[in-house]
């Protein structure tokens, strides 16, 4: 499981200076993300074959007709790989968006109101936080059934505490800042203060955290599919493709490569983005 590196891991030395590396990494990460999204969006148009079209030519190695070979019932692996990213990315983005929304609301409310409300919210989140993420995801999906909706909800719930904590921390420190005090003293409403002054301050750490959680979610979704707890067949997805390739490894070893590369590429996208954002936005430096 991917873990979040400490916020000060990157910037322990560098004094104030321009961060061209951060900008480069963000550019690379964005380019990878756009490529990923484009393939997901236009997948069915790009794919050379229908991902569910079978052929007698099963478990074939890479050929001119099938660049990545075919699976056990003769479906074109490249096409399945292209189309297979859609469900993974869909689940990932929707789940993280939900976690982000929930984390924002809970973190802002918790950090801003403080006191007993803060305590109650944090205690409940602590309980969710106490579970090993992947284990909880397996248990919930196993209990509720592996549908796309359940996967999304499960992952959203599992990552909400991490999001909420990232929001709450800066809010706690930001809300005592002078210009927030100033706004309050001239009678700006509490809600407007939260929205206008506090929220912008917490954007940078949230961006970094979101991309890290996106990488984590790619892991969780593909790992669940790998264990057979992903979106139900026949729709292709990377995790189950890797599992299937593993089954037939002795007959067609190279079929492992495609899904493996796809999974790594997707998580690398968000890790590069997170590292770049962290350097560019100077998150975590003292």
């Amino acid at each position: 499981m991917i873990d979040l590196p400490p916020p000060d891991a990157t910037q322990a030395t560098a004094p104030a200076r321009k961060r061209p590396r951060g900008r480069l990494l963000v550019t690379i990460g964005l380019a990878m993300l756009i490529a990923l999204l484009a393939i997901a969006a236009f997948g069915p148009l790009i794919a050379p074959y229908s991902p569910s079209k079978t052929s007698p030519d099963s478990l074939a190695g890479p050929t001119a007709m099938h660049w990545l070979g075919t699976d056990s019932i003769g479906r074109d692996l490249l096409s399945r790989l292209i189309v297979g990213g859609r469900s993974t990315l869909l689940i990932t983005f929707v789940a993280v968006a939900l976690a982000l929304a929930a984390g924002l609301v809970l973190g802002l409310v918790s950090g801003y109101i403080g006191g007993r409300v803060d305590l109650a919210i944090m205690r409940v989140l602590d309980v969710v936080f106490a579970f090993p993420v992947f284990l909880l995801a397996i248990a919930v999906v196993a209990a509720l059934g592996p549908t796309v909706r359940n996967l999304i909800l499960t992952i959203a719930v599992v990552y909400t505490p991490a999001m909420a904590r990232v929001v709450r921390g800066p809010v706690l420190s930001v809300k005592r800042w002078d210009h927030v005090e100033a706004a309050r003293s001239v009678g700006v409403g509490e809600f407007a203060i939260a929205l206008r002054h506090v929220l912008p301050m917490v954007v940078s750490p949230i961006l970094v955290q979101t991309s890290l959680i996106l990488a984590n979610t790619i892991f969780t979704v593909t790992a669940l599919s790998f264990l057979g707890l992903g979106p139900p067949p026949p729709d292709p997805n990377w995790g189950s493709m890797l599992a299937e390739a593993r089954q037939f490894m002795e007959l067609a070893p190279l079929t492992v490569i495609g899904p493996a590369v796809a999974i790594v590429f997707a998580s690398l996208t968000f890790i590069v983005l997170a590292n770049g954002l962290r350097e560019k936005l100077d998150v975590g430096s003292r």
Partner: protein
Amino acid sequence: MLRMVLVRLSLTVPILLGVSMVAFGLMRALPGDFALAAAGTTAVSDEVLRTTRRNLGLDRPIWEQYGIWLGNALAGDLGHSFATRKPVAGELLPRLAVTAELTMIAGLLAMAMGATTGLASARLRGRTDWIVRGLNSLLLAVPNFVVATLMVLLFGLYFPTVGIFNYVPFATDPLANVGSLLLPALALALTVSVTISENTRAAVLEVSSQDYVMVARAKGLLARTILGNYLVRNALTPVITVTGLQLAALLGGSILIETIFTIPGMGQYLFDSVSRRDYPVIQAIVLVSSTIVLMMNVLVDIAYARVDARVSYD
């Protein structure tokens, strides 16, 4: 010290209660009927179903059910498996031992790799730093089940003599047992080592800029003395803390690794139980692993506070 331990433990109790409620509630929220799931088939008579319900206590109020379940769990009774009808605790314990061993080896490997690369990164800086951090990003992007699958591909197919699927029980041959766990542990350790590496790097950089390291240099001490007594000894505490907190990640990852390498641990047990819809087992594993992780966090906190009491010089 004792006070601190008690306070820390008392803070954990409500979380543990919450965890147990989730673990319990999850299995009562099953679509369909718990009794039906227990029977394992839909083709049962109403009479049998009623008996099952009564036996499982499903006819009582939900809070009472929870109380009984929790009481049993505290007494070490984690219910009976739907599949084998045997007590879950008895089946779980030997598997837990296997997972504990795998996790421990992986933890040690991760610490060795992470500490070495992190230290090299922080001390040598420049190109080494750049390479280590680049590799770390890359490693972080390769999920452990992909690593494991590629390992299986590499060794199973091209170096079959290595025999990666030959799990040897500890009782049979302890040395061969550890040997058979090395590759799986490595697959499990890689991503965790990245976290340790990044934290080690940060800790060493932090310590390097401390005045006492400058004083050590001004004393004319040898580089290895400074490294050992001044840098590493001070950077060790945060690194060990981080390693302890990685237990959750290791336990989660072991589910995948054990399944791929066919190691008869808790992870594989969970996987089998999921495919068999053996809910009491799933419930027990969720409860037990969360408890272990929580307890580990408490231990890390206490250990840190102990060192901190001595370290704190402010």
